[in-house]
């Protein structure tokens, strides 16, 4: 499948074109946003299959709201991250508790040498397991800030809280991650 060929167009412009019946805009948005949505859902849930379901559902909601989308009120990605967070919260509540993963599925990888690759993979798995152990809101704030690299004001908008609350959540989340990961410093190359 070719890469997103409409890189010069904003998400909002593509969504407007989608609502007008442009199928190419639908494909561009699918290629551009599905990885973000699925990646975020995976980090909040820790399970790939569930993350895929959430990603599909979030994108479906985006398609449905397209005709009523009001440009300038919110960014499409902000709206999507909020939808993903809500869907993940519902999923976690249905589970009854946050499941700690014994083993995180290994994504395919062709980067670096074997030793470097092994350490990188171990770090990703350890981080995901540590994230899974965080309270839900802390996990979401840390993922948005330090993995998705979104600014605090936008995170505040996504989570419906103040910027100060975002800072507090990320600080507490990172402290908890440090404690969890420092116990594995030898295996993971954790350097304080």
């Amino acid at each position, binding site marked *: 499948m070719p890469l997103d060929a409409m890189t010069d167009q904003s998400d909002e412009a593509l969504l407007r074109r989608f609502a007008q019946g442009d199928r190419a805009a*639908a494909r561009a948005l699918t*290629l551009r946003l599905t990885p973000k949505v699925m*990646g975020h859902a995976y980090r909040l849930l820790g399970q790939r299959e569930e993350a895929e379901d959430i990603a599909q559902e979030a994108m479906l909601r985006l398609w449905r709201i397209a*005709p009523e989308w009001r440009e300038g009120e919110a960014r499409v990605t902000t709206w999507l991250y909020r939808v993903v967070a809500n869907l993940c919260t519902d999923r976690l509540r249905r589970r009854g508790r946050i499941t700690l993963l014994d083993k995180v599925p290994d994504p395919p990888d062709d980067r670096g040498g074997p030793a470097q690759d092994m350490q990188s993979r171990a770090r990703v798995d350890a981080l995901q397991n540590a994230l899974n152990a965080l309270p839900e809101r802390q996990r979401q704030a840390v993922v948005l800030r330090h993995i998705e690299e979104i600014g605090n004001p936008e995170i505040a908008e996504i989570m419906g809280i103040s910027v100060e609350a975002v800072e507090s959540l990320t600080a507490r989340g990172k402290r908890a991650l440090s404690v969890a990961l420092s116990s594995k410093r030898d295996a993971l190359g954790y350097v304080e």
Partner: protein
Amino acid sequence: MTDAGKNDAPALGAFFAAAKARAPQPDTALFARVMADADAVQAGFAPASAATSEARGGTLRARLDLIWHALGGWPSMAGLSAATVAGIWLGVSPPTALGTVAPLLTGRAETVVIDAEPVTAYLLPEEAM
């Protein structure tokens, strides 16, 4: 940020960097599911879009159809035809009663006196007495 946060940042940075580099990627099947949803939703509002575009830049026939339906179609045309025929008939062969009114309409009347105060009709007999 707290001191602890500052100290933790470099160590956690390697973990965050690894997570970003190994972001889970959707497979072809998920892309296909998402696109199938997009097609299905788009099909739901495609007819409205198509009708709008035809009306805006459509053929002459489409535009005439639009005007025809805006005027009410065949039922309103039947009423309009009946009114037209009646008007022509009145022009060709006016009823006799119309003759008294016609001069007023055409401006050919010699003199027309209209009493603006009908009450004088009752006063006149008394004055005559």
